[in-house]
C-alpha cells in the first residue's frame, strides 16, 4: 500500500509541473469541447491531434491525449442532457433520464449530478489503476509469445461480443482489420506485402489514416444525410445544486456505477461504452425507483455517468500493463507512445516510472479540473451547441486533412483517408461496426509476430496455446464468451441491451 502512495506522489510531482498542467488543461478542455459537439468523436480528435504531439515530450503528449478521452465523457453528458443527443456513444443512456430531467426544468441538477458522479468515479478509478496496474504488469512480464497471442485473441473476441448487431459480421470485421494491418513490409522476411507497387505503403497504412477515414469521414457523411434539427434547453439551466432528496437518491447508484464501470473498463474490449450500458441496466434492476427510469430519475444519470468515467480510466490498465489496447482510443494511445519511441508493455512501469505514474496522477488532476471548470462553463458549452453543423463539419474536415497530410507530408495519406471514408460509409450502410476492425488493424502485425514466435518455440505444435496454463485460460475464456454470445437466448438479451439506447 505504501508503495502506491510513494509512486502516486512521484506521479503528482511530474503531473503538477506547470507545462504538464497546461497540457492536461488543454486536453480536458478539448475533450469537453468535442464531447459537447455531437458528431465529433474522441477517436477522430485524438487522431487529429497526434501529429501535434510529435513535438511534445512523451509525458506531456500522453497527458493531453488522455485528458481528451475522459474529458469527452464529461462533455458528452452535457449534450445528452440538454439536447437529447449523445455527444459521445458512452452517454447514450444518459439521454434517457437526463433529457427528461431537463424537460422537467431540472437540467441544472442533472448536469451537476453528471459532473459530480463522474468526478467521484474518476477519483476511485485513479486509485484502482494505481493499485492494480503494478501487480498485473509483473504477471505480464512473464508472458511469452503464446500468452500474448492468446491474450490478443481474447481481446478481439471481447471486442466482437461488445459490438452491436451481427456476431458473424463483427468477427469478419476483426479479420478484415487484421488483414489490413498486414499491409506493408513483413518484419520477419523483409517482403513487401500487398503494396501493389505503391512505395508509400512500404511502412504500412497509418493507423491515424484508417481511424480518421472510418470514424471521422464516415461520421460526417452519415450526419449530412439528414437536415439538422435540435432543441436546446438554454434558458432553463438555473440552480445547479441537487436537493437533499437528490443526494439521498444518487449516492448509492454512483458507488455501484463506479465499481461496475471500473471492472468493465479493465476487460479487453471494454471501456466507457459498455460501462454506461451495464450500470444503467443494473440500476434499473436494483433501484427502488425503477418505475421512474426513463421519466427523469436522477439515478439514471448518476449511475451511467460514474460508470463511463470509471470505465474510461480503467481501460488504461490493459494498455499500460500489457501494451494491448482495449478499444479504439487506447489503440491511438499506443500509436502516440510508439511515435514517441516508447514500446508499450509491462516494462513501461519499471523503466519509465515518471511517465507511468505521471499519467495516472494527471488523470486525477484532470478530473478535478473538469469539475471546477465545467460547472461554471456550462453556459459556454450550451452556446457552442447552437453552432450549426454546416459550419462545424467543414472546419472538422480542415483539421482532419491537415493532421493526416502532416503524417508524411504527402497527399497519399489523404487519398487513403478518403478511401477508408468510403469504406466506413459503406460499413455504416451495411451495419458493420468499424470499432472491431480498428482493433484488429492495430493488433494484426503483433498477432502475426507472436504467432510465429510461439510456433517456432513449440516446433510447430499448435497445442502450445493450450498447454501453457495462462494461455489456455485466455483461450478458454474466449471460447466461453463466443459460445455464450452465440446462444440464442443471450443473443436476444444483448440486442435488447443495445436497443435501450
Amino acid at each position, binding site marked *: 500500500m505504501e508503495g502506491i502512495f510513494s509512486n502516486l506522489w512521484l506521479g503528482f510531482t511530474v503531473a503538477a509541473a506547470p507545462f504538464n498542467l497546461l497540457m492536461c488543461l488543454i486536453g480536458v478542455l478539448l475533450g469537453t469541447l468535442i464531447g459537447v459537439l455531437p458528431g465529433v468523436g474522441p477517436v477522430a480528435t485524438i487522431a487529429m491531434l497526434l501529429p501535434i504531439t510529435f513535438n511534445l515530450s512523451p509525458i506531456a503528449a500522453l497527458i493531453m491525449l488522455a485528458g481528451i478521452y475522459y474529458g469527452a465523457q464529461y462533455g458528452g453528458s452535457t449534450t445528452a442532457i440538454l439536447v437529447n443527443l449523445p455527444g459521445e456513444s458512452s452517454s447514450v443512456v444518459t439521454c434517457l433520464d437526463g433529457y427528461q430531467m431537463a424537460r422537467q426544468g431540472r437540467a441544472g441538477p442533472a448536469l451537476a449530478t453528471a459532473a459530480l458522479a463522474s468526478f467521484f468515479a474518476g477519483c476511485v478509478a485513479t486509485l484502482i489503476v494505481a493499485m492494480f496496474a503494478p501487480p498485473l504488469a509483473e504477471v505480464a512480464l512473464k508472458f511469452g509469445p503464446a500468452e500474448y497471442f492468446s491474450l490478443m485473441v481474447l481481446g478481439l473476441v471481447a471486442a466482437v461480443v461488445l459490438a452491436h448487431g451481427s456476431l458473424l459480421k463483427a468477427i469478419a470485421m476483426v*479479420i478484415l482489420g487484421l488483414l489490413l494491418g498486414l499491409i506493408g513490409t513483413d518484419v520477419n522476411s523483409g517482403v513487401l506485402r500487398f503494396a501493389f507497387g505503391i512505395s508509400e505503403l512500404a511502412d504500412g497504412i497509418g493507423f491515424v489514416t484508417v481511424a480518421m477515414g472510418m470514424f471521422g469521414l464516415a461520421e460526417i457523411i452519415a450526419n449530412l444525410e439528414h437536415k439538422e434539427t435540435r432543441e436546446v434547453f438554454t434558458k432553463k439551466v438555473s440552480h445547479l445544486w441537487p436537493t437533499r432528496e437528490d443526494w439521498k437518491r444518487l449516492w448509492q447508484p454512483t458507488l455501484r456505477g463506479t465499481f461496475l464501470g471500473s471492472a468493465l473498463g479493465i476487460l479487453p474490449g471494454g471501456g466507457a461504452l459498455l460501462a454506461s450500458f451495464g450500470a444503467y441496466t443494473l440500476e434499473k434492476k436494483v433501484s427502488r425507483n425503477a418505475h421512474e427510469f426513463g421519466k427523469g430519475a436522477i439515478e439514471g444519470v448518476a449511475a451511467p455517468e460514474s460508470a463511463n468515467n470509471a470505465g474510461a480510466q480503467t481501460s488504461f490498465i490493459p494498455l499500460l500493463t500489457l501494451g494491448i489496447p482495449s478499444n479504439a482510443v487506447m489503440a491511438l494511445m499506443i500509436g502516440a507512445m510508439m511515435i514517441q519511441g516508447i514500446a508499450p508493455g509491462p516494462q513501461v512501469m519499471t523503466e519509465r516510472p515518471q511517465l507511468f505514474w505521471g499519467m495516472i496522477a494527471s488523470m486525477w488532476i484532470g478530473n478535478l479540473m473538469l469539475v471546477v471548470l465545467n460547472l461554471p462553463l456550462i453556459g459556454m458549452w450550451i452556446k457552442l451547441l447552437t453552432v450549426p453543423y454546416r459550419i462545424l463539419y467543414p472546419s472538422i474536415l480542415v483539421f482532419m486533412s491537415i493532421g493526416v497530410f502532416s503524417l508524411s507530408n504527402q497527399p497519399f495519406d489523404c487519398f487513403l483517408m*478518403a478511401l477508408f471514408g468510403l469504406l466506413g460509409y459503406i460499413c455504416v450502410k451495411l451495419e458493420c461496426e468499424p470499432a472491431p476492425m480498428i482493433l484488429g488493424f492495430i493488433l494484426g502485425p503483433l498477432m502475426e509476430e507472436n504467432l510465429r514466435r510461439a510456433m517456432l518455440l513449440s516446433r510447430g505444435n499448435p497445442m502450445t496455446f493450450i498447454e501453457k496454463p495462462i494461455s489456455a485460460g485466455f483461450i478458454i475464456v474466449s471460447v466461453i464468451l463466443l459460445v455464450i454470445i452465440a446462444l440464442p437466448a443471450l443473443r436476444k438479451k444483448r440486442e435488447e441491451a443495445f436497443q435501450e439506447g
Partner: protein
Amino acid sequence: MRIKGPKDFWAGLMFIAFGLFFLVWAQKHYQMGTAVRMGPGYFPSVLGGMLALLGLLVLIDSLVEEGPKVARFHFRPVIFILIACLAFAYLLKPLGLAGSIVALVFISALGGYEFNWKEVSILAAVMVIFSVLVFVKGLTLPFPIWPAFMN
C-alpha cells in the same frame, strides 16, 4: 432464390471479395512456409480464407433469414466530402495552405443541405487565418502558405 436480408447479402459479398483477394494474392506472390517457420504468405492466407468463409456464412444467412433493407446511399455528401479531402491533399503544394483550405471548405460545403455564399466565404477565411496561425506559425508544420506562383 430470394435475397431476404439485403444488408447481410451485400456485407457477405464484401467480406468474400476481401477474403478471396487477400487469400489469392498471398498464395500467388508470397511464400507460405511451414507451421514452424511461417513465410510471409501464411498468416494472410489463413485470415483471407477465414474472412471469405465468414462472408459466405453471412451471405447464406441473408438468404435464409429475413433482414433489414439497405438504407438509401446518399451520393451527394459522399462525393463532395471525399473530393474535398482529395482536393486539399493535391492542391496543398501548388496552391499553398490558403488555397487548399478555401477549396476544401467550398467543396465540402456543397455536400450539405444549405449553401450560403457569404457564410461559406467567411468560414473559409476564418479557417485559413486560424490554420496558418496555429499549424504553420504555432506548430511549425512545413506547409507553404501561399500558392507557388505567388512566391
